[in-house]
């Protein structure tokens, strides 16, 4: 319990530090905000009044406090590019990104199992080793491009752009895979699945390789332990040994690697959404970079940062549940 409180408190501290960095960044906008409101020819008294009103002369701590207050109320400013509140934009694009991220994570977990099995089966094979180093060395935009080029353009098996083949569909949750089923349109779900497969695979490949490698290493260590020999000696089947004695004890290192990879996913989302024209937060952020839309950039950074810290904290807590020896 104390562990849990410590973890959550740690996460809050990290969040505060991050929000302070974002606060500093948003206050270095080159243009003078007072002149922007007052106009270039305003008399000094008006300028003074607006300075007062905007609170520019207040101490930094007070300004930061106001910034936090706005943040808690979900006020992230107005986007320069779309001229809408950043929070509304983010709310609109978030489901697409979450859907892609979740499918990638599930696919990545499945792939890591396959990779670990392959490595376990063909131990020391140069081919497998080279494949692992190769996939680990591939920048995400290259794997995304190659997947799009072959499976969409060359073979025509899967669509290579967007979320859905038909327009005008909106569901209650924003997750097309689920909405299709909820609204009794299974064709929508199937189409959404086809669209999500390639971008999700591009994101899942590095997860699968890194976690699979770590899982394989951890399993090797655990299976040479004495208690595993005892379990085998008791006459337990190999599957039972693997599931009851192997996996749980080998989970710690691969879980760390998994959490690291999930955290790396945020950078990958920007790239993959750009390559596949996936209308999510990543694409929104890339467009914001291109048009120097600072409120939008910082808003997305803040939302991604919060998700990142949440993932981190959840993984740490689940690790301590899997392995009671871990304690702060």
């Amino acid at each position, binding site marked *: 319990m104390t562990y849990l409180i410590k973890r959550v408190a*740690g996460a809050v*501290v*990290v969040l505060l*530090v*991050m929000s302070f*960095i*974002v606060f500093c*960044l*948003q206050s*270095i*906008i080159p243009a003078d905000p007072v002149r922007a409101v007052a106009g270039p020819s305003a008399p000094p008294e008006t300028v003074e009044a607006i300075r007062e009103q905007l609170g520019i002369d207040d101490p930094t701590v007070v300004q930061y406090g106001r910034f936090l207050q706005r943040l808690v109320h979900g006020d992230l400013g107005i986007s320069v590019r779309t001229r809408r509140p950043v929070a509304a934009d983010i709310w609109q694009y978030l489901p697409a990104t979450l859907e892609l991220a979740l499918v990638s994570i599930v696919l990545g977990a499945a792939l890591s199992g396959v990779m670990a099995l392959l490595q376990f089966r063909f131990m020391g094979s*140069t081919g497998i080793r*080279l494949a692992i*180093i*190769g996939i*680990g*060395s*591939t*920048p*995400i*935009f*290259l794997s995304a*491009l*190659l997947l*799009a*080029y072959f499976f969409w*353009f060359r073979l025509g098996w899967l669509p290579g752009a967007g979320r859905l083949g038909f327009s005008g569909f909106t569901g209650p949750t924003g997750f097309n895979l689920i909405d299709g089923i909820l609204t009794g349109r299974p064709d929508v779900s199937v189409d959404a699945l086809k669209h999500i497969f390639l971008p999700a695979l591009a994101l899942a490949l590095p997860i699968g390789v890194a976690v699979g490698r770590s899982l394989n290493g951890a399993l090797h260590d655990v299976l040479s332990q004495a208690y595993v020999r005892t379990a085998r000696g008791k006459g337990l089947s190999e599957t039972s040994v693997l599931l009851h004695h192997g996996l749980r004890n080998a989970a710690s290192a691969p879980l760390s690697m998994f959490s690291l990879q999930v*955290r*790396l996913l*945020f*950078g990958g989302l*920007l*790239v993959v959404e*750009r*390559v596949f024209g996936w209308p999510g937060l990543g694409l929104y*952020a*890339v467009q*914001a*970079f*291109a048009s*120097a839309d*600072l409120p939008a*950039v*910082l808003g997305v*950074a803040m939302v*991604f*940062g919060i998700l*990142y*810290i949440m993932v*981190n904290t959840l993984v740490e807590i689940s690790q301590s549940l899997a392995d009671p020896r871990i304690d702060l």
Partner: protein
Amino acid sequence: MTSMPGLNTQPARPRFSWRDFFRRAGWLESIGIVGVPVVTAVALLAPWITPFDPQLRVAAAFQPPSVEHWFGTDEIGRDLFSRVILGVQYTWLPGLILIGFSLFFGSLLGLISGLMGDKVDLVIQRFTDLFLVIPGTLIALAVVASLGPGLVNTMIAIAIFWWPWYARISRDEIRRLKARPHVEAARIAGVRGPRLLLRYLLPGAAPALLIAASLDMANVIMTLSLMSFLGLGLPAPAPELGAMTARTLDSLTVHWWLPILPAAIIFFLCLLTNLAGDGLRAALRGA
């Protein structure tokens, strides 16, 4: 020196032999170890060794790869291979500088932390922990987007978040070494300060740091090219590898070589450094 038969008066210090080193590293990994200095040379000499002027029109536009133009030509008719060679310079050298800085600064902080112990150690460790859990790449992206795109801004933003791993590794190594008998013996013999550090502690900590740095090079290159891909690097005419891919993304189905070949070079650079790191780890382990 007259030597007595059967008695070796030389101290038992194994000679370093390159053959032994490469044998331990493995043949595939040796290619990586040899490749790293070669790529560094190419990056340094890039402006002089490109077959064509990378900024000028030298042929018709959109020529596919051929014997004369290995990587084809781009939308203006510039030689893509020459531009990619120059792009290696824009990626590789900043990567080396970033790794060098992180290695130096992180190790220094780790050394201080490990040597001083107690309160200093605690403060530095908390500071390092904070930087380890903060979403560094995301904040670096936001920093560059706010300060304005550019290679220097990108490098500064990455450098701020890159050193903590090195601080962690060097601190753990120093603490491990401090308890070893040879360091204890040196201390009892009155060795102190810089001499203890340089002669007794650093040589022991160096292999772990070097291995970490060589395996980390691929991560730095990927992050740099990610920033460049997202348009946060140098502006348009500069041949940055990530940006070259991003700018020609829409021509994938018509002129596949324009986006794919620069990205493939990034893959090649990462593969080389990953192999070199694995080789170095195998060769230095136990040495």
